[in-house]
């Protein structure tokens, strides 16, 4: 696998750029935190420190340390790669179906969407035959169903199929 990866592409985003992006994102989150804390008040109120007191100073520390991190990144030499593009494609190819899976759960239930996710994964990544993929994709959710709904009495999101079957 790794030999193949080296042949197809040796480029990718530099570690430095990604790290700068991450640091800026963290600073942005902290700024949102400061804004939110200021809205509820971060000073001294009737009951002592106000609700925004703690998050305000926490956000300030985040920003201070992020600025130091940012300076460290800028100073460091940016030779190394964060990951190669084809590696990132690999990661994206997991994130995308999982995102669809996550968004589908409220509508078609967790069991059906899990079956689809497992089948899709096995066919695309594992290059399994449809029969094998279908078998695993059915068995795992069915076992899960028995384990959670029947034995441990934990209800999971269900969709039209489960309604049709009477659950």
């Amino acid at each position: 696998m790794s030999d193949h990866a080296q042949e197809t592409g040796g480029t990718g985003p530099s570690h430095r750029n990604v790290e700068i992006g991450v640091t800026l994102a963290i600073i942005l989150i902290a700024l949102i935190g400061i804004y939110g804390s200021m809205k509820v008040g971060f000073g001294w109120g009737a009951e002592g420190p106000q609700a925004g007191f703690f998050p305000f100073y926490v956000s300030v520390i985040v920003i201070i340390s992020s600025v130091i991190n940012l300076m460290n990144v800028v100073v460091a030499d940016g030779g190394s790669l964060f990951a190669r593009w084809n590696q990132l494609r690999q990661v994206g190819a997991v994130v995308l179906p999982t995102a669809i899976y996550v968004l589908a759960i409220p509508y078609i239930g967790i069991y059906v969407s899990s079956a689809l996710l497992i089948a899709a994964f096995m066919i695309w990544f594992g290059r399994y035959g449809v029969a094998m993929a279908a078998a695993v994709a059915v068995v795992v959710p069915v076992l899960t169903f028995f384990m959670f709904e029947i034995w441990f009495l934990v209800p999971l999101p269900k969709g039209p199929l489960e309604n049709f079957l009477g659950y």
Partner: protein
Amino acid sequence: MLEDIGNLFHGFAVVAQPFNLVLMVVGIVLGVIVGVLPGLGGANGVAILLPLTFSMSPTSAIIMLSCIYWGALFGGAITSILFNIPGEPWSVATTFDGYPMAQQGRAGEALTAAFTSSFVGALFAVIMITLVAPLVASFALRFGPPEIFSVYFLAFCSFVGLSKEPPFKTVASMMLGFGLGTVGLDQVTGQLRLTFGLPELLNGFDFLIAVIGLFGIGEILLTMEEGLSFRGTAAKINLKVVLQTWKELPRYWLLSLRSCLIGCWMGISPAGATPASFMSYGIAKRISKSGHKFGTGQIEGVVAPETAAHAAGTSALLPMISLGVPGSPTAAVLLGGLLIWGLQPGPLLFTEQKDFVWGLIASMYMGNIVGLLIVLTCVPLFAAILRIPFSVIAPIIMVFCAIGAYTVHNNAFDIVMMLVFGVAGYVMKKCNYPLAPMVLAIVLGDKAEEAFRQSLLSSQGGFSVFWSNGLVSTIMTLGLIALFWPLLQAAWARLRLGKKGLRPAQ
């Protein structure tokens, strides 16, 4: 003391109930599986399986969950030795000598040594917990808000000082965790904060979702990126090899003892099992007569990290049950479990929930014995799990992560948050941001903030309250030392180097 021993035996009686014994075995087996699978570890394994315990009594629940933890600790060694893939970060050091041993056809010997030393390390830590935890708890009962805050302060400062990651990244990650922990309802004033009118944020960010996302999904993404395929040596282990290795092991008692002590020390401070295993390996390499041969398949190189990792992993529960401050992410998840079952973690547990605490301690003894037997007899089975291709395992792990995330609050939005945390975890991990302090900060944020605000309230806003008596000043000062430890160490090294540097000149 005598009373504690009585309580402990009562605990054994609780654990020995058939239902609890079954849970123990189930927990260990699930734990080993979790430890063997890439992408699942102690923390997110326990987090995902937490909902299964909602309908149980707290004592049964903690027995099962803590056994998952012991199982995960054992499981990490299997993949390190047979596949050269550390299933858990704390078994990285085990691969250095364990995998060469397996390649030389001594897999059975390496596995026996690993499991036995894990057991010894855990046993040592449990005995320590039995003796020390009640004392710490009764001592901690006298703590007021400033003392409680100082304990949190010490815990979090140790993270910064002892972490291998850049200190400011640790601080950023930790404070981000505190920030995320404050979203939602403010415990003190009952005000909503940082929700920006979004109903999804009313309950804030649950750390269980964060654990499942950061560690579970993030880890799968990392594995996908590496595109790994498993190639391992066959696992054969039989009674003869086991007995032979056991005959050999007592020779390393000094090494074991030292590794136990390192492990316990690192486990109580929130540095955790991973640095403990490396430190123990490093020291063993320096001290041992055959130190230069380390890395080529020395049994000592397996004994040292495994003993320390287990001692650390186990003793991480000491501050969790006696102070309510978890020493590791997994201990944090167990603490989250306590809250869900309606127990208040902290020193009061020892007086108000005797059954629970002593049941837990007794299950540590029993669980490790049962665990040792299970892993010794079932290694080939567990190793077979790793031969299932990743393209089958990965979606199944995803499904279980999603189920685990959903069941925390029966909320589908949490699954979305899990994925967001997963992608964030992947990127942060690649940029060397440590994730454990972030998770602990989300868990402890509420309590640390409450203690902090109550302390300030009593002093009318003066920080002198944190240096108002001997106890709190000592803990705060220790915290500051831990925080600036890297600087102190560097200064000390420079001092010594300076002296040495002067000598040749004279």
